[in-house]
């Protein structure tokens, strides 16, 4: 059970944010192409940073609290999942706030001219 510690926390983050997709209709997972485009760059950059930091000795991850699958023999699989689940949770939070409050974020469609309401 101890080896599931890190994975369990990741599951908590995912479940704790994914319910917004249903309850608040965030429609983030449904827009998966846009989601993949948004996640690709931070995932790549932060995984590179993480690998470098582990190799350099900036931090280490307890092998007794991870499942034991390591990419390139360096980075536990949990770290890769982390850099998907955490930015996903942040995007879900962003859309959740918009769903409730209606505050614009700058990606709204411009109002059509024929509508009589100037942008």
């Amino acid at each position: 059970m101890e080896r599931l510690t890190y994975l369990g926390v990741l599951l908590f983050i995912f479940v704790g944010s994914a319910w917004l997709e249903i309850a608040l209709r965030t429609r983030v997972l449904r827009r998966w192409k846009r989601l993949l485009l948004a996640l690709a760059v931070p995932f790549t950059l932060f995984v590179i940073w993480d690998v470098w930091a582990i190799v350099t000795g900036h931090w280490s991850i307890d092998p007794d609290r991870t499942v034991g699958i390591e990419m390139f023999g360096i980075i536990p699989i949990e770290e890769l999942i982390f850099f998907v689940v955490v930015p996903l949770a942040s995007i879900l939070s962003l859309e959740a706030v918009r769903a409730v409050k209606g505050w614009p974020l700058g990606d709204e469609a411009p109002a059509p001219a024929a509508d009589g309401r100037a942008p």
Partner: protein
Amino acid sequence: MTYTQIGIGVVLATIAVDLLVLRTRLVTRKGFWVAYAIVLFFQLLTNGVLTWLQVFRYSDTVIVGSQPDAGPPPFIGNGRIAFQPFEDLMMGFSLCLLAMALWVFWGRRGVQRTPMSGPPIWRRSGSRAAAGTPGADPSGPGNGQSPT
């Protein structure tokens, strides 16, 4: 370079990307800061558990605080907030701001701009008039159809 120095640099670089490269300007928007406050709360909680259990251990020479030889780090103090080095908060902020800015960036470019989020299931659909075109729906006419 220490984790502290890299963290500060990455925060500044990410804000510059938001303001100058992607021009999404999320750091000027109330919606971003409310969302980040929620993210921060859960980072303090979840990363706090992981650092308290010492799933993550940090080199003494790269953080402002230090890593105890045995036992968990202090809840607060010695450069730590909720067990985690405050440097982790800089990394978390950058990771989430970059992802959120890119999400908005691609939406603004027309990649799956719609269907917009909301309304919450406890509100009747159509009661929110703020964002989006009137009558816009997932399959409706309009702006989601022309990527780039």
